[in-house]
């Protein structure tokens, strides 16, 4: 009797061992794409799994960007990390400066025979997740860039033909919009739109050490005259009723645009699809305004959003699968699919050309504005930034902008405090990530 039981257990054990050997290699992918975006992610994964028989990619939604990063970090520390982790722009320094946390995507692709040339990627995408030598560490995934949306009805009511190209033009038209019953402007992300991309648009250095790409031992340069001028204007506009502040939450400011309280709203190129559904008026998109007084020809903005990182500590066979999946995901068909479904920009020139050839931009010209802005001429300071504890630095920025708006601090004081507090954080980061 005992023997029979033993045999049964043995047989069951062998059977259990045999099953995974014949099954597909599972690849975990943790992402932060909720709602409709999550559905598109699932669809891409499903299509990939159906397209081949060796690997199975398993996408898991882990909450917002910060939640996903924290979940990935906790899992890494417990040696349970996923194969692929989505990390957002502000978290890039945390993962890239932790030596050995992620496998550079350029190496991964080359090693597994997928080929990789960063020149395939469009200008504003290429540099952000790369190291100082230009080697791409993360695979850009959902990439967007800030744009200006404007309510065409409001502009018609105020008798204005075109949206503002420059802030000077904006200043001139704001009173007209006010007379027509609209607050001229709201926006949804002060650090991203009116600080980081403000520097890129005007080609201004953002931090020492090559915007942080060369070293972690850097100082922030936000406390500059251009920023102070702009935020002084912002406060003036707020007091004059030309700028509407509906709190820090992204959605509250976007809602103000949807509900026709404000005539213009600065948000993400990825907001396009959502706005199309929620608005009952005709709106257009255009490039982010710039100050003529600072720069004659504006430069490109850089991407926001997130990238996919191949986490270290996995087997070669698994990495082969990750490389295969990355190659699949960045092929033209999938890029165009992702672009159309979500409003995020295609990340390769080839995919962009394909969407153009299909006539996609003829039917919805607004969908092209983001890529056009990203493809504007770059400058020395347009590739982005790589700053540590940047999540906390953004927190500091939000606070100081609140203080300017509420009148608690002068512009001068707010930026000086921002500089001190940000540099203290950068110094902590540099001491931690040498």
């Amino acid at each position, binding site marked *: 009797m005992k023997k029979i039981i033993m045999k049964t257990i043995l047989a069951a054990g062998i059977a259990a061992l045999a099953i995974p050997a014949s099954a597909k290699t599972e690849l975990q992918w943790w992402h932060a794409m909720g709602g409709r975006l999550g559905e598109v992610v699932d669809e891409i994964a499903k299509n990939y799994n159906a397209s081949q028989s060796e690997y199975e990619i398993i996408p898991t939604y882990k909450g917002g960007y910060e939640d996903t990063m*924290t979940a990935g970090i906790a899992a890494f520390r417990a040696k349970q990390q996923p194969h692929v982790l989505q990390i957002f722009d502000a978290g890039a320094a945390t993962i890239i400066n932790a030596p050995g946390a992620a496998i550079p995507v350029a190496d991964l692709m080359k090693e597994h025979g997928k080929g990789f040339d960063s020149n395939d990627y469009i200008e504003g995408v290429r540099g952000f997740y790369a190291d100082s030598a230009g080697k791409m560490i993360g695979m850009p995934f959902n990439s967007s860039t800030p744009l200006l949306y404007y309510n065409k009805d409001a502009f018609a009511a105020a008798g204005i033909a075109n949206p503002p190209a420059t802030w000077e033009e904006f200043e001139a038209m704001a009173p007209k919009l006010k007379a027509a019953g609209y607050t001229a402007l709201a926006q949804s992300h002060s650090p991203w739109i009116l600080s980081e991309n403000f520097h890129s648009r005007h080609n201004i250095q953002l931090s020492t050490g090559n915007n942080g790409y060369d070293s972690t031992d850097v100082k922030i340069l936000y406390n500059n005259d251009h920023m102070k001028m702009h935020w002084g204007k912002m406060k003036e506009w707020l007091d004059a009723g030309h700028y509407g502040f509906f709190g820090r939450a992204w959605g509250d400011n976007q809602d103000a645009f949807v509900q026709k309280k404000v005539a213009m709203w600065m948000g993400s190129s990825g907001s396009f699809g959502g706005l199309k559904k929620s608005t009952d008026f005709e709106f257009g998109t255009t490039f982010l305004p710039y100050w003529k007084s600072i720069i004659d020809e504006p430069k490109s903005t850089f991407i926001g959003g997130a990238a996919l990182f191949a986490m270290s500590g996995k087997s070669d066979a698994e990495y082969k699968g990750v490389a295969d999946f990355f190659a699949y995901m960045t092929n033209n068909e999938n890029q165009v699919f992702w672009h159309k479904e979500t409003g995020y920009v295609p990340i390769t020139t080839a995919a962009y050309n394909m969407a153009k050839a299909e006539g996609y931009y003829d039917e919805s010209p607004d969908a092209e504005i983001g890529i056009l802005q990203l493809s504007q001429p770059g400058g020395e300071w347009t590739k982005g930034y790589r700053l540590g504890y940047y*999540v*906390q630095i953004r927190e500091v920025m939000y*606070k100081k902008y*609140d203080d300017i708006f509420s009148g608690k601090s002068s512009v001068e004081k707010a930026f000086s405090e921002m500089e001190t507090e940000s540099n203290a954080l950068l110094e*902590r980061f540099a001491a*931690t990530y040498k």
Partner: protein
Amino acid sequence: MKRVQFEHSTIPYLFIAPQIAIIAIFFIWPAGQAIHQSFLLEDAFGLSSQFVWFRNYVDTIGDAAWLQAAWFTTIFSALVTFLSLGIALLLAVKANEVIRGASTYKTTLMWAYAIAPPVAGLMGNLMFHPLIGDLYKFFNAIGWDFNHKLDSFDAGFVVVLIAVWKQVSVNFIFFLSGLQGISKAVNEAALMDCKSPTRRFWTITFPLLAPTTFFLMVINITYAFFETFGIIDTTTGGAPGGSTNTLVYKVFQDGFRGADLGGSSAQSVVLMIIVLALTIIQFRFIERKVHY
């Protein structure tokens, strides 16, 4: 002569073992980890680490944002504790006197107890929404230039209001049962000696409620320190200008959002010490005045 000694038995230890295990796993071990981590500067992924003595503590105490959060936490906790205890006591005393429809009143007052802090926060968020919030519109209509997105007083008002509203019902339940525990004979005897209901309350009822009040005070301060996290997170998120940031929310922001493990560990150890000190003070100085 035989020494009197109780026989040692392992059974009592077995009985307390689950409790000890829970405390060890869910408190002592993580607290130890936090203390250990608070002396380190370590990258988020745990790949490199260095021992830095008290640097994280020095950075914490020297951080203007932390001091601001400490100050707000103090005011906020005092207000929430005082108001939610005061209002609950008043309601309990009044509800205790009601004869007709008493259970309706009581049930209505207890209702909010079932609501989790983040849900209370979300509800408050809707009511104070600048575009659709009824309370936002109401306050502005009565001439208060109310804007909690920019005015730190108004923002503080919002979080205190929601935190108090949420906590009143818990306190109400305890106060009511405390009141019902006071024997009728005592009340009747007091009634013969003193006509004034106010005086009767303060000299007889309130002292008899003291054990309940003390217990609730400890609970409420802990609530204001820790559990209001969900309310802060879903309403102001610490805005404007960090004026409604609490210490525990800052631990979360720096550790769970910002991946600064050493810094946020040091903050949580400091928070632990503060709450420990507060609890000791309460038991040493206030509990002495409580008669059970």
